[in-house]
């Protein structure tokens, strides 16, 4: 399991390629990879969003992410889990979160990937502050009507 925060923009596909190289011999046991990438949208409620600041709780974020990944590894049969989350200033189309799950069977990878993503949204202390054309504001909740929700 690899869980980390990134202050700098990251390239999900480069990281996935690198991670699979490191899996090496275990790759031949893997039949399924489920991947989710959340990225920043440039519109929210019809208002243009220029950038977004991601605040977090430094002493809790990685610990809570690890709990979630750990629980998934106990619940499903997984070969590897990778979770990366941005902090700091992000711009439209920047990746915010990457969740990747490698498993022998697809049901496990699909279920675990979605579970990790939903748990992250409800349990890990991250908050988004939007810089919009009409000023700055904290995103108040993760709903389907919000640019913060994907």
């Amino acid at each position, binding site marked *: 399991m690899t869980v980390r925060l990134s202050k700098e923009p990251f390239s999900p596909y480069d990281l996935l390629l690198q991670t699979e190289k490191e899996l090496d011999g275990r790759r031949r046991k893997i039949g399924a990879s489920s991947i989710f990438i959340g990225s920043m949208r440039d519109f929210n409620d019809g208002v243009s969003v220029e950038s977004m600041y*991601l605040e977090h*709780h430094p002493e809790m974020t990685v610990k809570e992410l690890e709990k979630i990944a750990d629980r998934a590894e106990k619940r499903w049969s997984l070969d590897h889990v990778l979770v990366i*989350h941005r902090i700091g200033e992000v711009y439209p189309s920047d990746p915010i979160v990457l969740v990747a799950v490698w498993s022998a069977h697809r049901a496990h990878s699909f279920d675990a990937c979605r579970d990790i993503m939903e748990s992250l*949204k409800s349990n890990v202390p*991250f*908050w988004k502050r939007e810089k919009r054309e009409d000023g700055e504001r904290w995103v*108040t909740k993760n709903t389907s009507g*919000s640019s913060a929700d994907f």
Partner: protein
Amino acid sequence: MSIKVKFFASLTDLVGMKEIDVEFESELNVINVWQSVCGTAQMPAGCLYAINHDYCEPDQLLKDGDEVAYFPPLTGG
């Protein structure tokens, strides 16, 4: 007893502070501390609480040296 109190994201703006150290005479729970520290500022719906970096219930009692943190609804991912 001394308690460190932290506010995150929109709560920092709401209560006008990020962090404060306070002294209490009596035993207080998470909600009591908010009321004592934040005065008239109402806690928004859906807030979460952590003591010493672990989530806790609103009625959990604080001990000397604890750090209590207040989180507005999470919006990560």
